[in-house]
């Protein structure tokens, strides 16, 4: 087999300058929360490692993840990650159709057996033998299992693949099921959100391509670097929450003053995501900035937690330095029965670290 191109080869082929490349490396490092010392490491990795192929499959979903992805802020991220590196196979964007498309998938699996990353958008519905989502004459769950078998690792894009999302809302007519409940023998990273933020998606994928392993995950299997803090912790309206200044009705005087949206049903206090720091649509804004509360779309079960306009009542008062794991620990200590659960969760986390190591050893 001829040697595979490196990331840098691909970039050069696209006419990207060295200067631009180095800028990309430093932006990536800062997006990932890594210090300047990592910039040359990223550059070195991209110059020497063969590019990692990615297969991107769509199950029961709405394509919002892809839509988010192609709006990443840095043009290089789009060019490099989207069209040059990642998408050896993608349902929505590729040229081929019909049997040619099915063949392309088979060829990619064959050629990169054990080396590719499988990115899954959407999830498989299991009811009635999977007949609610049929692609190429077969239930999606079969295509998913088939593509997962020889994957190095799996990315569950968005709330659908990670948790089920709204299509799993009661009564979950199709039994929409998250990926990790169907594929149990591969390292899986969850990148929830409906959709996830573009820069989070490119950040995760760049980390995996560069370091050839999963980033550190929290106890729910989400990358800690992006899901380590509540939206509330970094919300620019937080001072108003602390001061007890709230919006009481849409577009009232308090709304014009930018007061806190907690009383309008904002789920920021219980939602772990990077919306209030990275923001959306190339850093322009995020839902709270548009005057509407957060709906908590990166949390498991957000679709069945009562109305999106109901006030959060299970708010725990922790400082901004807390993360999901710490809060989990404190909550567990407070509730006797939950201690065993937390131990199990910690064990799961240890197992995830192990799978990360496995991935890097295999490579």
């Amino acid at each position, binding site marked *: 087999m001829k040697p595979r191109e490196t990331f840098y080869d691909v970039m050069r082929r696209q006419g990207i300058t060295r200067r631009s490349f180095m800028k990309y490396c430093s932006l990536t490092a800062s997006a990932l929360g890594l210090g300047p010392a990592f910039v040359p490491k990223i550059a070195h990795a991209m110059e020497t490692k063969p590019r990692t192929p990615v297969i991107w499959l769509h199950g029961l979903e709405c394509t919002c993840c892809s839509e*988010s992805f192609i*709006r*990443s802020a840095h043009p290089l991220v789009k060019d490099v990650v989207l069209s040059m590196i990642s998408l050896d196979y993608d349902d929505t964007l590729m040229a081929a*159709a019909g*049997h040619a498309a099915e063949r392309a998938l088979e060829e990619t699996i064959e050629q990169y057996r054990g080396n590719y990353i499988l990115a899954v958008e959407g999830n498989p519905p299991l009811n009635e033998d999977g007949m609610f989502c049929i692609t*190429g004459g077969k239930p999606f769950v079969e295509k998913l299992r088939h593509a997962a078998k020889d994957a190095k690792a799996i990315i569950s894009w968005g709330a659908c693949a990670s948790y089920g999302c*709204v*299509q799993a809302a009661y009564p979950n*007519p199709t039994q929409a099921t998250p990926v990790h409940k169907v594929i149990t023998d591969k390292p899986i990273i969850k990148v929830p959100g409906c959709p996830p933020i573009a820069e989070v998606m490119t950040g995760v994928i760049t980390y995996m391509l560069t370091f050839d392993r999963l980033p550190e995950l929290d106890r729910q299997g989400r990358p800690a670097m992006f899901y380590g803090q509540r939206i509330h912790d970094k919300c620019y309206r937080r001072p108003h929450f602390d001061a007890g200044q709230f919006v009481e009705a849409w577009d009232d005087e308090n709304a014009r003053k930018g007061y806190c949206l907690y009383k309008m049903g904002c789920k920021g206090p219980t939602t772990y995501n990077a919306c209030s720091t990275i923001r959306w649509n190339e850093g322009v804004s995020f839902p709270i900035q548009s005057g509407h509360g957060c709906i908590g779309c990166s949390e498991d079960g957000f679709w069945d937690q009562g109305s999106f306009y109901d006030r959060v009542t299970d708010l725990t008062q922790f400082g901004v330095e807390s993360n999901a794991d710490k809060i989990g620990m404190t909550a567990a200590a407070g509730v006797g029965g939950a201690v065993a659960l937390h131990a199990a969760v910690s064990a799961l986390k240890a197992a995830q670290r192990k799978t990360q190591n496995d991935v890097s050893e295999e490579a």
Partner: protein
Amino acid sequence: MTDPTRTLLVGPFNRVEGDLEIRLEVEDGQVRAAYANSPLFRGFERMLVGKDPRDAMTITPRICGICSISQSAAAAAALGSLTGAHPAPQGALAAAILHGVENLADHVTHFNLFFMPDFARPAYAGRDWHDTAVARFTAAQGSAIRATVEARAKLFHIVGLLGGKWPHTLAIQPAGVTRAPSARDRQRIRLSLAGFRRHLEDVLFGAPIEAFAGLKSLDALMGWSTGDAGLFLRIAADLELDGLGRGPGRYLSFGAYPLAEGRAMAEGIWAEGRHQPLDTAAITEDLTHAWMLGRAAHPAHGVTEPDMEMTEPAYSWCKAPRLGGRTMEVGALARAVVDGHPLALDLAARGGGVLARIAGRLLEIARTQVLLEEWAAALDPGAPFMADMPPIRDGSGEGLVEAARGALGHWIRVEGGRIAGYQIVAPTTWNFSPRDAEGTPGPVEAALVGAPVRPDEDTPLAVQHIVRSFDPCMVCTVH
């Protein structure tokens, strides 16, 4: 040579939103009959039952990642009709800007990412336009595709400013929008629009958009030679796309962008060569060829009960909407025809088809850009953007909007403060509907009849062009 009569199963299509499979009966090198199957069902209408009515505004947008604002606008309109809420005039204006940006972006995406790449296929090698098409539109890497993705991302800054995020924007409510833009926001919106105009005039049209919006006839259209629009028209003339994929010749539009002074594009139908008023009470959804239980009903009374046995003769999850028992074509072309634009009327009078649909979309790109600029200039940061919201009460409501792909309706019924019934009829449900009780094929099924199929083709190009000319959104179709 293969057998002169054969059956082809075409799909997955890719480069359409969602999954689609079409069965073709081919005879003597032509499609004799077509059956469109929407193979993806999620059951949104069932999940909504029992929920807080306001939650429809968060849940229904998630039917679709590319027309989520359309869904949220329809849900807000249905709640508005239920409660009698009237949006603040400036709120309606901001909602129209949000919706217009999404529709504009969808059209540009369809043209560049979904439709044009088919002309870069090797099967067209040797045509005098093929090299240009390859350079511009090769899937995922053509120069036009990159330019479009870039320009589109910048255009969406407007949705960021007014709606917080896209996809799945939350700002639109029955009585207005949650965000009152500042004078600075208005300026940034106008700058983003100016940037997008530059993109359209440099790349897509190669000339001022007003010139394209002012075209009055098919002949004038075919004389347009600049930009990627010019390239398309050259290809269309060469491949005779005007005669390909003729629709039912009946067009339906709910009327786009409800503003305080009325809808910016007229509502109505166009059939038998003339305008006629629209009566939404005449809409029914026929279930004879859908894997659904129950009888044909108006969406206000309809149910969604999947048939787990998938009993024949049904062949799709899609219901078959009909207006007064007849199929209707919806989309940008239909909107412009119903609105009375001379070019669209000329295209419709000559029979519609692939060229007419793409031209209708290009025309709407030009017109929407102009409308957006006017609306942005009319934003008044000091005015209220949200009117008083009457309380949710029991009863029913109808929310009618125009998504990029055509007429979108939500019908809600509330009992005891909870959703008791919710039915959605999406644009592609109209266009890609299966047969009805009379055996009448849906618009795309009818449009495919007569499409040429070469003996060596198993994914016929003509079929691809026809199907994509409708810009199907399969996730909305069945939901």
